[in-house]
């Protein structure tokens, strides 16, 4: 009986893994939405900082320097987030490709993508990009 129970448990786990493409689909859409929100926010923020930097002309005053530094920081931050979103999508792709060839690692890759997503979501919330 114990053997039957453990076999059934394994089958249930395998059945749960079968929903992976749907899970990946939902995660992909959520990541895409977060990325679009971040893009709009950062584009406005970075361009605004750049405009203020340019208005200052030759950077002499502390205020001009602050605006120009804000632009550089914004640009670096945006680049880091773009890389983060790309990494999440690649991780989802890994999950999907492992699923297609029937590898158990599919679930691990999916969970890794979700962890990355939670981390970047927290980051975006802390920076006021997402509510």
């Amino acid at each position, binding site marked *: 009986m114990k053997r039957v129970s453990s076999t059934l448990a394994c089958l249930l786990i395998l*059945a749960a893994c079968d929903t992976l493409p749907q899970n990946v689909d939902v995660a*992909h859409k959520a*990541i895409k939405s977060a990325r679009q929100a971040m893009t709009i926010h*950062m584009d406005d923020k970075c361009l605004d900082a750049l405009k203020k930097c340019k208005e200052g002309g030759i950077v002499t005053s502390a205020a001009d320097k602050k605006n120009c530094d804000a632009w550089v920081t914004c640009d670096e931050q945006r680049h880091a987030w*773009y890389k983060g979103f*790309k990494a999440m999508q690649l991780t989802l792709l890994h999950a999907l490709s492992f699923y297609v060839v029937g590898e158990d690692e599919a679930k691990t890759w999916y969970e890794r993508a979700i962890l990355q997503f939670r981390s970047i979501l927290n980051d975006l919330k802390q920076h006021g990009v997402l509510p």
Partner: protein
Amino acid sequence: MTDFLKTLDSTTLIKWAAFVVKSVVDLLSAREGRDPAAIEADIRAELKAIDDAEAAAHAREDALADS
């Protein structure tokens, strides 16, 4: 029914149970189920969109910086 089940060996029961579980999961996931290849194509399109958005942002900033 119970007598009939008693005549089945554990391997057959497991196969039946697996079939039932698989059918339920398939039914549940079929509601919004999509082909993995279609999902993959969407993710690849999003990867391109990420690169395009980054390139476009840099182009806008470069244009503003040069103006």
